[in-house]
């Protein structure tokens, strides 16, 4: 690595004096990179964030920010000296200060510079003219944007986002998320987002780190996490999944209830296990259109959930295996229709648990 990383975490172990919550985490965030730490609640992701911020003292391990050691067995830099910006859950705006006061909180004593900077920040988050507003007068999305402006005002070298969108409603969430993403891409501050929302992590981050039981299980670009999950657990966590029992493996082709499917990644070593596909890899064809073509497994449509841009169709194969299929737009099928299922692309094979 040519440049110093914005953040480097080496073998970090954190506990609250009791059992370890974070157990040996390594993480590397490059300059200008946006990384998401994705994990279910209780996976230790927030604890990891708090340790990076300096709110918690780790049991062991190293934290480096911009090449500077802020935490190891001998060094301990308190949070106020780490130059980290944090957007906490719910924003946590100071209720006794107005918007300008909140944004100026981390700035120096130079009044003129502060006023200018506050105006710049408000412009940046599209809240011009709201200097005098009180936090309780703002909507949830505005509060989050002020919290972001407050965190970015002192020009931190690293930004930490602690589930900043979880308190917003869906429409607003998408909007605030998009704004924040383009804003961060523009100013290029290295960012760590902690979230339990896989869609959020996959759509925002340059790289995603999946965390479970205090460990990071896989780090990679969003498509890699989605298409080549390292474990069945990750595969299940990062999106809808079709799981098919495998009877036999022939070279790199697995025999499944929907027929032979190519196995991606490393050549399979086991002769059985679970083959996983994403629902959009399956194609449904109504039986009546197929006439004499025998390819594809037959099944019957059990339920359809229609989302507008796509729909998810639950099909039960003749041997009883449930399969869900994602189609763009509507599938043109009805519950009870007999269908054939065709597979595109390769699946992943995991050994039986």
């Amino acid at each position: 690595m040519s440049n110093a990383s914005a953040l480097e975490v080496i073998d970090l172990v954190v506990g609250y004096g009791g059992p370890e919550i974070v157990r040996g985490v390594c993480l590397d965030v490059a300059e200008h990179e946006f990384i998401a730490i994705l994990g279910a609640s209780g996976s230790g992701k927030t604890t990891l964030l708090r340790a990076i911020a300096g709110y918690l003292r780790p049991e062991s391990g190293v934290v480096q920010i911009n090449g500077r050691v802020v935490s190891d067995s001998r060094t301990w830099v308190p949070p106020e000296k780490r130059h980290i910006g944090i957007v906490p859950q719910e924003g946590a705006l100071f209720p006794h200060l107005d918007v300008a006061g909140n944004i100026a909180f981390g700035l120096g004593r130079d009044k003129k510079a502060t006023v200018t900077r506050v105006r710049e920040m408000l412009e940046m988050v599209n809240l011009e003219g709201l200097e005098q507003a009180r936090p309780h007068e703002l909507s949830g999305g505005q509060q989050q944007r002020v919290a972001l402006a407050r965190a970015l005002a002192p020009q931190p070298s690293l930004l930490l986002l602690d589930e900043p969108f979880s308190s917003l409603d869906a429409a607003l969430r998408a909007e605030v998320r998009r704004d924040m993403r383009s804003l961060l891409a523009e100013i290029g501050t290295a960012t760590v987002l902690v979230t339990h929302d896989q869609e959020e992590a996959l759509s925002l981050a340059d790289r995603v780190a999946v965390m479970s039981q205090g460990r990071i299980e896989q780090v990679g670009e969003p498509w890699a996490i989605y298409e080549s999950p390292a474990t069945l657990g990750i595969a299940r966590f990062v999106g809808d999944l079709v799981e098919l029992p495998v009877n036999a493996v022939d070279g790199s082709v697995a025999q499944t209830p929907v027929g032979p499917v190519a196995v991606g990644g490393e050549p399979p070593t086991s002769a059985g296990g679970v083959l996983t596909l994403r629902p959009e890899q399956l194609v449904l064809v109504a039986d009546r259109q197929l006439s004499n073509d025998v390819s594809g497994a037959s099944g019957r449509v059990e339920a359809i959930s229609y989302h507008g841009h796509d729909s998810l169709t639950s099909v039960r194969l003749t041997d009883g295996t449930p399969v869900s299929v994602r189609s763009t737009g509507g599938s043109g099928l009805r519950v009870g229709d007999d269908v054939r299922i065709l597979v595109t692309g390769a699946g992943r094979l995991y050994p039986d648990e």
Partner: protein
Amino acid sequence: MTAIPLLYLIVRTTGAGWQAIVDSLFRQRTLETTLTSLGLIGLVIIGCLVLAVPSAWLLARTNIPGRALFLVAAALPLAVPSYVMAYAWIAEFPWMSGLLAAALVMSLATYPYVAIPLTAALRSIDAGHEEAARSLGLGPLAVARRVTVPLAWPAAAAGLLLAALYTLSEFGTVAIFRVDAFTRVIYTAYRASFDRTTAAVLALLLVVLALVLVLIEARARGKAQRWRVGSGVTRPAPRHRLGRWGVAFGLTWLIGVAVLALGVPAWSLTQRLLESQRTTFDVTELLGALAGSVSSSLLGAALALVLALPIAILAARYTSRLVRGIEGAAFLGHALPGVVVGLSLVFLTLAVVPAAYQTLAVLAFAYAVLFLPKAIGASRSSIAAVPPALESTARSLGRGPVRAWFTVTGRLAWPGIAAGTLLVVLTAMKELPATLMLRPTGFNTLATELWSRTEIQAFGSAAPYALAMILLASVPAWLMGRWLARTPEDEAASGAVDDDTVRTDDITYVGGIR
């Protein structure tokens, strides 16, 4: 710190030998005293709830006219020493005596401890909680029972605990109404019969009772989550619009309570004051006593604040057993009657630092020990009301731990902390037995002058001191009422938005008197 008087008690008691302890513990008299004190506490708790709950609801949740005024009226009884109140009542109604009379006067004197924090708590409960409950199909009464009461309960419980402990250690009122509660029996044993073993044993029993009260309060408070979950900033509940009859009933109630708690003592005092015109009256004596009251109570309050803040900060953020223990021990100071703290400090100073005997420093220390719980209670709950995320965010924005605390948590909690310190000043001004024992020779406070005149039945010449004391103590009570009266919507209505003087959100944290 608080343990010092307690340790002396234990040393003193065990020194007398087990036989003597067992003898004094299992006398008929001991049981009677215990039952009397418990009965008095029970009656005072009922009295406080009856007086405080409707008043707090009216002031916090309705548009009843004159709220600011009635809030001041609700705080004012704190400025009237309960024994002055007792004396005023008995001077008007000489037939009053016994348990019920004492309970009435104690309730009137202590209900502000419940009414004021409860008003603040009702004001600061987020409207969203109650609205959510309504949407879940609960009627107004069910909302009150299942949402409002549980949320406001910690404030009321802490207030009731204070009232109960106050009652347990009150000496003047029970003496005036000739109720043989612990303090009177102990005092009599100390002073009259020189039977100090019995007194010490009873005092220890008193401490045990107080410990039970503290434990009950701790359990009532439970592991309630003390900071709000939910987005954004608290929005106060809208005020209930009263109809014509509602206003009439409400005003009748509030005026009625004010008449009982303030009107009767004021009337009686005025009568005595008119009598005192006929006696000679020395202004310099009064001024000297005034200076004594102010200096000693301010010193005591400052010391109490210094001792209380670290405990309050720990207790608000961590609920470990150790912190609970420290907090509980500090609360015990409140249950040690002034008599016991006074005498044990006399003993201690004579034994350890004779030079400090009867100095202002020891008197201030006694006040700090006695009133530490007040300072802790107020500071703790107002600190707990500030979400910890605010302070950690301030840290990440470059403020060191101390600055972050002062600019965020301390800044938001200060109304509660200040209110707690004011309570200490008020109560220290009213303190009597410990002041009598520990004051430097020739050092007089309003309380001691008032007492020495009351003791010789010179009610007329005592009246100016009582009045001066009430006036002096009214100032902080008035300020406290003003804080509470100031709510966001009132500010918006008056259009006064000035960053330095108006603090929109402070009201949320005044909840803090708990």
